[in-house]
């Protein structure tokens, strides 16, 4: 099961080779009340300690696949189910230092049954989260 809140405690970690980190990941639960085909998901902005990383540059990792924004927008055959988390993969040379960071995310979700002016809609959350390993 996932944690009740949107940004998960685990899964917040650096990625890339040790000593030469390429970025970090933030794990999130499904930003929707219904399971979602990935083409309805339009990426996530991530802000850590005041520095914002745009949804256009972040990738999404779901199970064993990684999607950049263009791939996400065409992934009509891939489903994200409510019990599963996904990770936002953020490029940042060196990654983040171990310790507590302020993390905010804004997930962009397209719900075709919402009026056009609410496309996309936004799911936001913020919290303190912890990087353990450098």
């Amino acid at each position, binding site marked *: 099961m996932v944690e009740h809140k949107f940004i998960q405690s685990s899964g917040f970690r650096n990625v890339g080779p040790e000593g030469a980190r390429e970025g970090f990941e933030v794990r999130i639960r499904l930003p929707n009340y219904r399971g979602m085909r990935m*083409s309805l998901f339009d990426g996530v902005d991530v802000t850590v300690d005041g520095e914002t990383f745009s949804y256009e540059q972040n990738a999404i990792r779901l199970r064993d696949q990684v999607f950049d924004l263009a791939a996400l927008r065409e992934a009509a055959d891939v489903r994200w*189910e409510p019990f599963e988390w996904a990770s936002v993969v953020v490029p940042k040379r060196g990654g983040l230092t171990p310790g507590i960071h302020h993390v905010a995310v804004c997930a962009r979700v397209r719900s075709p*049954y919402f009026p056009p002016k609410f496309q996309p809609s936004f799911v936001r959350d913020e919290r303190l989260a912890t990087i353990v390993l450098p």
Partner: protein
Amino acid sequence: MAGQFKYGVSLYSFTDDFGSVMNIEDGFDHVADTGATGIEILGETHVAGYPKPTTQWVDNWFGLLEKHKLEPTNMCSWVDTRLRLSRSLTVEEGAAELERDLNLAHLLGFKFLRPKFGVVTHDLVPDPIWEPAVERVLDLAHKYDIVICPEIHSPTPIKHPVTDAYIDFIERTGTRHFGLLIDTGIFQDRPLPFWPQETPEIRATDLAFLDGIKVNPEEFLDIAKYVVFIQAKFHKINDKLEDENIPWPKVISALKRAGYAGYLSSEYEGRRDPWVAIDQVRRQHVILRQLEKDFDEGRLA
């Protein structure tokens, strides 16, 4: 002689709890313990492996229905016309979405299917492929004896071209496998709390419908013959057992006078703090049952 309501609960009520602090077995328990006889689900949310659950999952589904003495009522589905930014669905693709969900609804024993179509305007006019897509699957719906029932849902009021178009479709085809689902949120007459980051300016303009579109419950009588299912949408019932947004006495009175004898399926849509929904749904069932009793015994005009 007024009909008797049937009482149900939609697992949508437990959004955010489901998948984090509640699984499907828990959900069944919470629904059954209200005294409800029917359970409503969202196919894409509550069916593991949607749209093709395993046989083990399906066996478990029927085992839970039997254990808790519940019947499947409505399954909610979507026709995501803007599935991709790059293009809308064709009529064939829309019909395929409906067929996929009719097959699943039939597998799981549902009698109603609520498709939510993508829309093209602020007041929720559906993508025009809805009509030819539905027409292509009417025979399948008839074969399964499932009634396809799109919603009349805020901000769309009853008196609106969207409703008229659905009624025209019913009259034109003569089908008994397409009807209206009424979401009682259309009767909301008091404002919801502000969403995070919402300002008074936003509430006055883009999100004005969150103050309630205040459809007069009497208008239900004009369309009652087409209504096949009701989602009892609500947001908050306080500790004095008062609903702070939906005028239930007027709503129940209109439904009873119209002779409605179908399901009232609870859809809690208030604060999503863990486990709050469970008791909110129980409170709603107290109110609904009391009002029906009041009407039947002559205390509710």
